[in-house]
Structures are given as structure tokens and as C-alpha cells.
């Protein structure tokens, strides 16, 4: 898998497939909602809202091992007020692309292992 690493999920699940499924489904539900919120905040150029959404998302993304997403998230969390709008847009779009990639992999994993 390119985007996600299920090491943490496997550790907390400890062979309990119901628990594993719960976290995967939660990811499948929360990420599109939050991506949509992120897109809306970007359209409205609402910098604070962008920071809040990313702040809320970041533990789940870390848990799913999407490490290459944490650097742009942390930059946005700390520099959201001062960063140029162009750069802010680029970083948010970059994050959204990675989120969509991770989401596809999670959906595929559910399809292969739980359906």
C-alpha cells in the first residue's frame, strides 16, 4: 500500500476483526466529511477553519501511518495566518490528494477483507 500503514491498527485490534473493521469504517466515514469541510474552508479562504480541521484530523492520519501528510499539516497548523494564499491552497490540495489516495486504499482493504 502506498498511502497507509496498518501497523497501529493491527496492534490495537489484536486479531479482533470487529475492532479493526470499526476503525476502518470510521476512517471511511470521517475522512470524506472532513475533506469536504476542508474544501469548503479553502473556497471561503477561512484560514482558521482550515487549521481547526487539520488539527482534528491529524491524530487519525498519524494512526493510519500517513506520514508524508504530516509535514504539510504541521506547516499549515503553525503558519496558517502568515502563509501566502497561494501556498496555503497548494498545501491543502496536496493534503486532499493524499487523503483521497488513503481513502481508496482503506476502501479497498475493507472490500478485500470484510465483504
Amino acid at each position, binding site marked *: 500500500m502506498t498511502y497507509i500503514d496498518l501497523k497501529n491498527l493491527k496492534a*490495537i485490534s489484536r486479531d479482533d476483526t470487529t*475492532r479493526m473493521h*470499526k476503525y476502518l469504517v470510521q476512517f471511511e466515514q470521517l475522512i470524506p466529511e472532513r475533506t469536504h469541510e476542508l474544501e469548503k474552508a479553502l473556497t471561503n479562504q477561512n484560514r482558521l477553519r482550515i487549521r481547526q480541521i487539520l488539527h482534528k484530523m*491529524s*491524530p487519525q492520519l498519524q494512526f493510519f501511518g500517513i506520514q508524508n501528510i504530516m509535514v504539510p499539516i504541521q506547516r499549515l497548523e503553525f503558519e496558517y495566518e502568515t502563509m501566502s494564499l497561494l501556498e496555503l491552497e497548494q498545501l491543502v490540495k496536496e493534503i486532499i490528494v493524499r487523503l483521497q489516495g488513503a481513502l481508496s486504499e482503506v476502501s479497498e482493504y475493507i472490500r478485500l477483507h470484510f465483504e
Partner: protein
Amino acid sequence: MPYLRYPNISVYILNDQSTKSNTIGCLIIDDDPFIQDLLMDKLQQYFPEIKVLGKAMDGKQGLAKIASLDPDLVFLDVEMSDMTGFEMLSQLNTIGFKIIFITSYKHYAIKAIRFNALDYLLKPFDLEELKNAVKRYKETESPSTNLVLHNLKAQNAKDQTMILRTQQGELYIPLKDIVSIQGERNYSYINLVKDKKELVSKTLRSLEDLLEEKGFFRCHKSFIVSKNHIVSVRRSSIILSDMTEIPISRRKQDQFKKWQEE
């Protein structure tokens, strides 16, 4: 080291574990369902003595659940959708539980958490850190949470009390009583009014970090002074209320002037 207790501060021990069973009832307050589930699963898997009594999605719900569930321990998100964890706590009249803050990264709130000698965990929770936090919860006999409440409600920094964890217990030091602090490698002497002195195993840097926005200034590599206790200022030194003379480093002189005028 003496265990300081100041008569003008009320420390209530409301959470007397000896009268309760060994089960620790906890409440999780966080606006992220993922965090709620993850923490609950980790607690259930590794801490059978902890029972999750309930979960709350925001500060308002948290206040209601604290009142109805009477938890021993609250895992409290620093930044919620409707208020911060500190804002939520300041709405309480008394705190009858211990607190472990949970946060996504080490931001500004960590300073306030450290000033009050509270615990915090970084999301998404390292197991060893969680184990250590629960261990500290069990080992800390005297909950200082009502002193925390006192600090949160204090209008001025000088009315706050710094809480330091030491091997002997918690040390409560009202900021208005601190005249100066002298660093000695990994230790610091806190010079108090009435010629009292406390030796603590904190570096001057860490104390400076806690106190720099509360009327204190590091005027020299070995000294921090309190603005409230400055009696007079000489060309390169300060006379304090205990009549000690503290040097001002040459490179700190401009900064010191600015700080004095603030």
C-alpha cells in the same frame, strides 16, 4: 524538602480514593470520535482497573457528564469545538477529579499545563506514555486540581500559584512570594519572601519558560527576578525587596528596560 502549604490557599482533597473501590471511573472529553474510541480501547486493553464511565463530545457536554457521573479521572481535550479544556474547567466551582489533558501537539497550552503540574498525553497516544500517566495518577496522593482552578480564575498572574512536582510531593509556590530564582546547573534556588528558600530540581531555563509571561525576567544567565520585588535599578544591577543585588547581563540590558516599561 518541606512540603509547602500556604494558609491563604484552600486545597481540598475531594477525591479520597480510600473511600472508593479500586476501580478508577474515568470520563473522556474529546470532540473526535476516533480519539474517543482509541483511548477507550487502549484503556480497556491495558488498564482493567479503569472503567470508562462515559464520553463527551464538547465542553458543554463534558460539564454535564462530570456532574452526573462523578468521575475520578478525566481525559480532557485541550482544544474542543466550543471551548478549551481550561475554559471548561474554569466553569466548575470545585474539581473533585484528576485531569490528564490530551492534545495533538505541543502547543501553547502545554506551558499552562506544566505551570499547574498537570499531566498531558499526545494523540494518538503512545502506550508507554499512557502507562506512565496512569501510574502518576495512582501515585499522586494530593490532588492539586482545586489549586489549578484557583489559578484559572485568578485575574492577575501574581495571584497564581506555581505547582512543582518534587520527589517529596507537590510544592505550591504563590508567585507573589517569589523574589528571585538562582540557577545552579540542574537545580534552582527559589528565593521567597521572609528569607525562605526552596531548592528544586528544575533548570533555570525550564522555570523561565513557565514564568516569562507572568512578571518574571531572566536578567542574567544565573538569575530570574520578579517585577513585583524590584526596589531599585542601578546601571547594571537590580536591588530586590530582600535587599539582594542581582546583576543584569550586558546583552540583557535593553530587553530588561523594555520589560520594565511593559
